[in-house]
């Protein structure tokens, strides 16, 4: 691995999409333009997102997920056997429609607004999931690169819909085996292309813990079904470890947060990381990319028991507000963590993406850039305070 300063600054993944890109995405989804035509439009948007990140001082950049409808549904374009379906299209297949109705009411969204990639046939591979993203990113930046991928648990649970998917896979476990096979192949291909950081998005893990008795969901069609939280977390650990088994030389992260679809904090999930940590620590990954910028994330102290076991991607700005957190505020927050956590294991990032869902940007590119500048300024201050750099060797898992 390359030498890195203390407190590397990175993003969680998505960057707000410009209107012209959203327009092109709609046209692509309506099959009015080809994939190649859409890619050309997206190239421009990626370059803009990339320049803003670089100018803001981001050390490990992404392509802003500009080519994606959202962080997991984009796989529909990349795999055979999946269809992007609206919940309104799934209603005839739902076993517990009344529960979905409660979810829609709680979220205050129509069923047509929630789209999920649903497995309708055996999965077949095309040209990778994010290899095109990686190639373009690598060609256009000298910074370290991060590729976010949907985690194996998220992808399996969100894509398996009884009544549709069981025609191709008898059980979700059977689907997971194929998902893991595809993700492993993807990791190796990304590694060969020189990716520095692969982040698996598993935000639905918080749904399992904090949303089990509520109606909130992570806007996934297949998630409102009630399941045993501990069994689900064990399954998430098992599938993650099978995905990364035996692969080194790439930093692996897992991102968990409590929702990023609305600026209304009261509709998002809340609760500290305590119940989740024993499971997250069992995952053979390097870093936990977590939100901490709102009180919903709970106390930092729950990490004392697990100090230095993993790197922490420390969420220091709220991606859903207009107010720009000052560098001083960020430094104060990081100091609280660094009081009991090795500074070499602390990365700085926003709580989540700035545009998780293409048509629901939670902020503007201008505000996103200012927030990242604040983080970079705080990182510079912290590096000076802690006076050190580190040299890393290859990671092992």
């Amino acid at each position, binding site marked *: 691995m390359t030498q890195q300063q203390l407190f590397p600054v990175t993003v969680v993944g998505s960057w707000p999409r410009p209107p012209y890109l959203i327009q092109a995405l709609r046209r692509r989804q309506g099959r009015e333009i080809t994939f190649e035509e859409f890619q050309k439009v997206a190239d421009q948007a990626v370059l803009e997102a990339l320049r803003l990140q670089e100018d803001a001082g981001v050390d490990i950049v992404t392509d802003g997920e500009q080519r994606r409808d959202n962080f997991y549904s984009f796989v529909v374009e990349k795999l055979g056997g999946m269809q992007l379906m*609206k919940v*309104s299209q799934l209603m005839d297949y739902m076993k517990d429609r009344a529960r979905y109705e409660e979810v*829609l*009411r709680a979220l205050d*969204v*129509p*069923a*047509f*607004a929630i789209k999920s990639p649903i497995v309708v046939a055996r999965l077949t591979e095309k040209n990778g999931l994010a290899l095109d993203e990686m190639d373009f990113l690598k060609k256009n930046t000298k910074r370290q690169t991060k590729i976010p991928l949907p985690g194996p648990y998220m992808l399996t649970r969100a894509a398996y819909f009884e009544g549709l998917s069981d025609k191709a896979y008898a059980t979700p476990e059977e689907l997971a085996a194929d998902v893991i096979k595809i993700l492993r192949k993807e990791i190796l291909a990304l590694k060969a292309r020189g990716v520095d950081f692969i982040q698996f998005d598993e935000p639905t893990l918080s749904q399992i813990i904090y949303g089990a008795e509520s109606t909130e969901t992570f806007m996934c069609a297949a998630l409102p079904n009630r399941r045993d939280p501990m069994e689900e977390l064990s399954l998430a650990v098992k599938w993650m470890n099978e995905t990364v088994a035996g692969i080194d030389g790439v930093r692996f992260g897992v991102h968990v947060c409590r929702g990023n679809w609305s600026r209304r904090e009261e509709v998002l999930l809340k609760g500290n990381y305590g119940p989740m940590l024993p499971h997250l620590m069992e995952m053979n990954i390097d870093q936990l990319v977590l939100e901490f910028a709102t009180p919903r994330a709970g106390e930092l102290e729950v990490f004392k028991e697990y100090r230095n076991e993993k790197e922490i991607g420390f969420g220091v700005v709220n991606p859903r507000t207009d107010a720009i957190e000052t560098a001083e505020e960020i430094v104060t927050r990081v100091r609280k963590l660094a009081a009991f956590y090795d500074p070499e294991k602390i990365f700085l990032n926003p709580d989540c993406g700035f545009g998780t869902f293409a048509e629901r940007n939670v902020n503007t590119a201008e505000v996103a850039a200012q927030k990242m500048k604040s983080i970079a300024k705080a990182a510079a201050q912290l590096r000076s305070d802690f006076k050190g750099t580190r040299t890393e060797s290859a990671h092992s898992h």
Partner: protein
Amino acid sequence: MGQEAQPARDKLNGLHPRKIEEIMISMNQPEVLKEVSGPWKSRIVWQDGFRVKAYMRNHAVEMDEPGALDASDKAASAHEQLLSAVGSCLAVGFVLNATRRGIRIHDMEIALEAHFDNILKWAGQCDTGNPGYRGITAKLFVKADADEVTLRELWRLAYEGSPVTQSVVRGTPVTAEFGAL
């Protein structure tokens, strides 16, 4: 009669705008007006328990009550279907007005909700009050090729022109008649 079928490419929102316009104008003719004005009919046949079947022209819809009321819950209840009837009529009105203005609708949903004012009267636990809905809210979600001001105007037209909604809003009298065999 003699009207040529318009090709599918002339369709908007699944309707033929030209044909729709002709139908709307034709309603000014007394014989057409008489035909569309009614009488509209429904016959409810009791099946078992709280379950009934409603026959309307050549269509049939089942209605039941929730299991909590010792019912079989095989179908939605009449009061839920009243909400659905209001929402469906609003949807039809919205599509009609959008299509007449050449506006393409991509997706549309209407979420309705209501609370009973005093259900104890239905349950025979008191003699006063209104066992019916205290009020009904209908929220439109729409994705269409028009600005918000235009879409709000279509929603207003749909509401004010909805026969079912206005029957509820205006408290249309129901005359209870009787025949014992």
